[in-house]
Structures are given as C-alpha cells and as structure tokens.
C-alpha cells in the first residue's frame, strides 16, 4: 500500500494550537447543564461543571467567514489529509479535579499522533489530538485524548 501520510504530513505531529484562556461562569455552566438535562443540583445551579462541559468551552469562536458549507468551522490544527470522510473515533478524559465557576482555564490542543492502517473497506488515517486544560496556577485540570478516523 502506498503511504498516504507523507513525511511532510507526519511533521504535523507535535503541532500545538495557540492557548485559549477563558473564565468559567456559573451562567455558562447552567446553560450546558440545562441543555444536557443534568439532574445533579451542583451542575444545574452552575457551581460545578458537568464532566464534558470543558470539551467545547475551550474551542475558539471563529468568525463566520471561516464557516464552511456544512455549517462547521475549519479546523486549522490538523493538516489537510488525503482522506476526507470522518468516522466516529474515541475520546478518553482524565479528570484531575472538578471545574467550578470562577476558574480561569487554559486549553492547548496538540497533535499527538498521525498514523494509517488498512481497514476492511480501504485505507484509514487515525489522528490523535490531546487537549490539556490547566488552571490559573498552571495545574492540570483535565486531559483529553481524542482519536479521529478518516476514510
């Protein structure tokens, strides 16, 4: 099989996003908690963030001219890959401490790995991206590893 991931594409491993720093407000937590039908009072009153609150909170908010035809925003961390269709991957999160209203969080995305495999119906590219969330004292809060599959 011809390699889809050229040495140039493989050089993207290790690439990091610019850090994003945001203040967690009780209102922002309450919106997420309500939208996801949480039942725990600490989430509904905005005191503590539900476990997956962080995932979108630390994404940048791009301007509308960066929106593509499907409504999504272009992701400029991963290089343009030769396979375009995405498949469900997996996501693993380690929690170092809960996120609470009043926390100032910083998120950095890093490409941890890019590799290819021959699947049953053709080649697949796997991209593993880490999101490291730290607090104002630079202590770890949440670490997430997401694997996206392209076919």
């Amino acid at each position, binding site marked *: 099989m011809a390699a889809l991931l050229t040495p140039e594409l493989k050089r993207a491993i290790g690439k990091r996003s610019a850090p994003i720093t945001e203040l967690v407000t009780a209102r922002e937590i309450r*919106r997420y908690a309500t*939208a996801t*039908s*949480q039942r725990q009072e600490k989430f509904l009153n905005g005191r503590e963030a*539900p476990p*997956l609150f962080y995932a979108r909170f630390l994404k940048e908010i791009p301007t509308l001219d960066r929106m593509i035809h499907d409504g999504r925003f272009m992701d400029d961390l991963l290089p343009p890959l030769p396979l375009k269709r995405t498949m469900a991957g997996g*996501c693993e999160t*380690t*929690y170092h401490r809960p996120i609470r209203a009043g926390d100032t969080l910083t998120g950095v995305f890093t490409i941890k790995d890019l590799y290819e495999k021959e699947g049953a119906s053709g080649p697949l590219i796997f991209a593993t991206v880490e999101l490291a969330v730290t607090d104002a004292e630079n202590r770890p809060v949440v670490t997430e590893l997401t694997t996206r599959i392209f076919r």
Partner: protein
Amino acid sequence: MLRFEDIRVGLALPERAFTPTSAELFVYNAAIWNPHRIHYDLPYATQVEGYPAIVIDGPLQGDWLTQAVTDWIGEDARLVVFKYSNRRAAYLGDTVTSGGTVKASDKSSRRVTLELFIKNAKGEVIAPGEAVVEFPRD
C-alpha cells in the same frame, strides 16, 4: 448513600431513556456553539450528507453516559477517567437508553470501573463507554 463496601461486580446502574426533541437539540448545539447543519437542517442532512433524518450529536450521547455515572455516585465518589466512542448514529425521534454495570472494584485504590452504554430501541449499543470512579477513604 453509596458506599464502596457495598459495590459488587455485576451491579447494574439505573437506566435512563432519552428522546430529544428538535428544540432540545437546538438548545444543546447553541450551548456548545455547534452550527453543524446535520443537527437542524433536514434537507441538508438527508439530501447532501445522506442521513435518514436529523442526527443526534455524538458528544450529547457521551454526556448522557457521564450522567449515568454522576447520577449514580452523587457526592459519594469522584469521576477520575471517562472514555467513550460513537459507533452508530441516532436520529431525531429515536429513544435511546443509558446505563451500565460495575466491571471491577479495587480495594487498595478504592476505585470502581464501570462499563457504560447507550442503546437504541433495537437494543444495539450505539455508544459504549467506560468510567473509573474513586471513593474517599472513611
């Protein structure tokens, strides 16, 4: 109150059914700032992307998996690790059910490993997950 000493391998977590409406999906996607058209634009979802209907967000199902855990542990333990994947899609109008079972329990670390699922109406696991929770020492 949930006590580490009472937890046995094989114990089932309470199940919960979800049938999100289009307005509920809208509120979720607004809350996470997600404008992907497959979650609200039916002609686009069916004619352009080839889905049979509006798609229920994968990460929303991930959140429902975490709630199977957070509703079970309440304030009695803390979530340490959570992982999941989306294996099959679910669509507007579907009812899906979250739940799980205790897979392992370790006395020395007071950690309990849970196997989690989102199932569709056919009983297929469409989003499997796993969580590790840690109980405080008495």
